[in-house]
């Protein structure tokens, strides 16, 4: 466990230790030999032909790991997947990024990858919703859609031949994210799941789990299909925008946003995979125990969450058997 920078009293430390041991014993069988650190030998059958993948090297006739991580085997390929590595994108992933540059006909976004991702102007819906060729005027007005430092949600489209990433934001659910906060966690904590957009009804909050480790928690925004919008509504909308600039998020929603954000922070400190259900459970745990939002970042709550998770997993294991 990476050094938890929390002041734990003796009892809290023992409780946390026990919870982690329980979790480890419950995890799947191959795990104990799977995690390696640098210069550990990788257990492999040397008679079979195998391919040496990333993170391995041959030393003195033995296969040795060069990074700390988990050993993965796919057919004959043996490689070590680093844990604290940068995000490794796959086509179709939902990512949340920040615009760093507005370039010719494209935006460059930072997504915690080795290179900045590119969002082409043509991969973005026009504000009026009409499908048409992008003209030079559109190019000049790119700033009215996204500016520098805006937070954007998009989907990975493909890789270019030079290794850079292309994104697309063609659906209504993608686009600029406002009225909320961005949390940065390790990318390996967000696993691929059916849906990365979660609308938490009872709080009225949007939770977007970007696979690159950027998590957005914010007020719920109605995804309107702009094609259906007709003229009389547009003036109303521009007025609503002005008002929105004046009014702030109501206090209760802000408290909910803070609670969810703190739940995400606690789970990332403990190293648990992010899952909307898990986050909701943590939030419910905190509100049922009447823990003050600020205390959620204290050591007591961390220990409680770890114990709860250990219990939950043991229950799931028992149910399967």
């Amino acid at each position, binding site marked *: 466990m990476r050094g938890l920078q929390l002041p734990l009293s003796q009892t809290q430390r023992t409780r946390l230790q026990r919870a982690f041991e329980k979790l480890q014993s419950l995890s799947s069988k191959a795990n104990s030999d799977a995690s390696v650190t640098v210069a550990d030998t990788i257990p492999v059958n040397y008679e079979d032909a195998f391919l040496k993948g990333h993170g391995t090297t041959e030393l003195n006739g033995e296969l040795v790991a060069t990074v700390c991580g988990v050993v993965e085997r796919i057919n004959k390929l043996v490689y070590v997947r680093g844990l604290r590595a940068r995000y490794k994108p796959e086509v179709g992933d939902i990512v949340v990024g920040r615009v760093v540059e507005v370039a010719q006909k494209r935006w460059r976004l930072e997504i915690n990858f080795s290179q900045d991702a590119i969002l082409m102007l043509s991969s973005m819906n026009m504000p009026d919703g009409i499908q048409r060729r992008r003209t030079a005027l559109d190019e000049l007005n790119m700033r009215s859609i996204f500016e520098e430092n805006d937070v954007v949600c998009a989907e990975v489209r493909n890789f270019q031949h030079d290794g850079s990433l292309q994104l697309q934001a063609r659906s209504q659910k993608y686009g600029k994210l406002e009225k909320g906060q961005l949390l940065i966690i390790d990318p390996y904590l967000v696993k691929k799941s059916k849906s990365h957009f979660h609308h938490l009804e009872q709080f009225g909050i949007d939770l977007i789990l970007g696979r690159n480790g950027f998590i957005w928690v914010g007020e719920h925004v109605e995804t309107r299909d702009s094609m259906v919008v007709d003229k009389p509504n547009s003036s109303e909308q521009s007025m609503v925008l002005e008002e929105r600039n004046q009014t702030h998020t109501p206090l209760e929603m802000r*408290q909910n946003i803070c609670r969810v954000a703190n739940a995400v922070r606690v789970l990332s400190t403990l190293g648990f995979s992010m899952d909307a259900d898990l986050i909701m459970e943590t939030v419910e745990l905190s509100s049922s125990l009447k823990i003050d939002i600020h205390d959620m970042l204290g050591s007591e709550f961390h220990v409680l969450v770890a114990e709860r998770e250990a219990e939950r997993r043991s229950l799931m294991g028992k149910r399967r058997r």
Partner: protein
Amino acid sequence: MVGLSVGEKHFIQGGISQDLRLDCRKRLTYRPIYVETGIIPQAHGSARVRLGATDVIASVKAELGKPNALQPDKGKIAIFVDCSPTAAPMFEGRGGEELSTELSVALERCILGGKSGAGAGIDPTSLVVVEGKVCWDLYVDGLVISSDGNLLDALAAAIKAALSNTGIPKVDVAAEMTGDEQPEVNISDEEFLQFDTSGIPVIVTLTKVGKQYIVDATSEEESQMTSAVSVSVNRKGHVCGLTKRGGAGLDLSIILDMISVAKHVK
């Protein structure tokens, strides 16, 4: 420092005006502070302070030197802060120099008092060995490892902790000295003179965002500030120093209000 979009800035300002910041602190709540002392064994005193993600180290080294001719009964103390490039990419090379000098000057003012030595937190006369000839020079160095807002408060706390951890070696002065000769001194290996740090003030920085002030701003909140006032308050509740940063002007009544808030927070 990562930029913030307009929506995020609006969110932060809204939070502060509603007394619920990004990590759910109240306006006047500090982040949890962790202090470790004695981390650098070669220095005479050292401390490391972590305030959220802000991480600073302070170390104290004492050397024998000659006192200033104008003030023969006082020792010398120098405070210097260095912002390491690991804290932020803009600190690489000469980038961090402006911030370093600003912090050093602010700390010297708050802890060492004015030019005449009035209102100092440390009594320089306790540093003298032989009047007019030999005195201790204290070099206090601060290093910023990681910056997430509120550096001044963290550095002041680190310096206070380092000084409380400092042990100045006992010095034996050989007898028989004439006129201008430098006396012989024996520095014993046993360090035993501890500093009295009860007089050293603590700095509270209030950052004004919109119409409200907050205590202990993170770097995102600091990017939104219009101005900041750092008040150094000592144990008795007296104000030892005042530093104002930021371009916007402040009404006098607001400054007095902020000072009283700082005393209250302390």
